[in-house]
């Protein structure tokens, strides 16, 4: 057999297997059950508009708060980690390693239940506030590492040029180094943001009032209420509508940075 003929044969076989599998699936699947259970128009109608005005809205709010808080904290941590003063470095390193080493879920549980009991202190915003605070802290650890790498990627000559003009080290950091570092880390930061969107779903373990529920808690409640899986599909679609454009954006930014190099 000629080589090209054999290759064509193998390829044809692979397509045949694929088609066979699809046909088989279609035959054994109970389409009516699937439609009723996952794509029930009736349930979708019940979810609207709360899926947007409660679920998506709160997911976005919690993500933005966690990211903004995490970023602010991370700037401090990254600068501490690069500080000439050793104890600052130790504190930052301990914080970063500790919170990156734990599952986010454990931190959320700790802030939601353990901390209020242990210190008889209630974070602002009730248990949801505690959960978001946990996300702030977890994200601060990840973002700080990203920022530190970005700061160190700024050429040393930038720092020297600024200092040789008489700028103080603080002025140099904020006017010269950080703006360049942020540019470098925009793609990885966007990635952190996407991870954080998904991590807000973990907040469902601490329970929330009706109008405080984020997307996962919302759909989980609806799942129980209607004894139907459609809310899961709706939530999944909502997550993808938010995350896909962002991951595409990251890919584009990364390509552009590669070209600029």
């Amino acid at each position: 057999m000629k080589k090209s003929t054999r290759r064509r044969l193998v390829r044809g076989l692979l397509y045949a297997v694929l088609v066979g599998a699809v046909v088989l699936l279609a035959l054994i699947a109970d389409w009516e059950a699937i439609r009723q259970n996952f794509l029930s128009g009736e349930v979708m109608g019940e979810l609207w508009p709360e899926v947007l005005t409660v679920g998506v809205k709160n997911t976005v709010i919690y993500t933005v708060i966690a990211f903004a808080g995490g970023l602010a904290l991370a700037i401090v941590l990254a600068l501490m980690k690069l500080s000439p003063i050793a104890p600052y470095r130790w504190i930052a390193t301990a914080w970063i390693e500790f919170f990156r080493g734990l599952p986010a879920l454990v931190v959320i549980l700790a802030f939601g239940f353990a901390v209020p009991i242990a210190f008889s202190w209630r974070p602002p915003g009730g248990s949801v506030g505690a959960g978001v605070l946990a996300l702030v802290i977890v994200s601060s650890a990840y973002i700080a590492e990203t920022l530190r790498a970005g700061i160190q990627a700024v050429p040393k000559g930038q720092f020297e040029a600024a200092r040789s003009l008489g700028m103080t080290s603080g002025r140099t950091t904020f006017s010269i180094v950080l703006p360049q570092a942020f540019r470098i880390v925009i793609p990885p930061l966007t990635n952190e943001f996407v991870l954080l969107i998904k991590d807000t779903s973990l907040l469902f373990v601490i329970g929330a009032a009706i109008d405080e529920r984020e997307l996962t808690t919302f759909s989980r409640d609806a799942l129980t209420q209607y004894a139907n899986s459609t809310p899961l599909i709706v939530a999944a679609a909502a997550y993808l509508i938010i995350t896909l454009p962002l991951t595409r954006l990251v890919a584009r930014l990364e390509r552009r940075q590669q070209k600029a190099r």
Partner: protein
Amino acid sequence: MTRVTSTLPAGTRAIEVRDLHKYFGDNEVLKGIDFHVDQGQVVCVIGPSGSGKSTLLRCVNRLEEPTSGTILVEGVDICDPEVDLDEIRSRIGMVFQSFNLFPHLSVMRNLTIAQQRVRRRSKDEAVEIARNNLAKVGLAGKEDAYPAHLSGGQQQRVAIARALSMDPDMMLFDEPTSALDPELVGDVLGVMRDLAADGMTMMVVTHEMGFAREVGDKLVFMDGGVIVEEGDPREVLANPQHSRTQGFLSKVL
């Protein structure tokens, strides 16, 4: 060009270095340097790679920390802990081999940021001074460009204009033309010649022997962390006394 240096006692040297030693770890890179630059003088420093030229230059504004010895800038000991190092640095212009323009800022902002933040000039005043200096280096009209869109020679001239905008009393150059394509070297050297003609005090690490011969008031040859020979550039270049100078010059000329 009017230059205000009258506040200094007559005879005060712009730069005076005494018995300077510098170690990087165990590596002694400067082994007892005595060196000075007078007001208005152009001093060129030459020598083989690794001889310590950049380190000496960078010690003058304490980008490198001297291990021991004394460095006086206009009579002020820059290693004195009481001294305001940022203020002294703002009066010493520095030009790097790799330009080190701020890539996230426009040319105009590169020239005004330190004027406003360090010199506390108003924006209008800073912009005016920046325009004058851009014109002086032949780059009027490039105010809104970003460094990445300029050629190497243009970037280096912007870097010189940036340093000049602080009205420095002296300028340090670390191989300002070594990173440039040969056809762009002349523009930068031309700007430096103009500066020298205006009476600027300059310390120039360079491999441009022609520049050293024509513009320099003094030539310093370094090798292995010491000053081997120094004197009138025409003398040293035409008639080097030390065998190490002879060996180096025979290779580069």
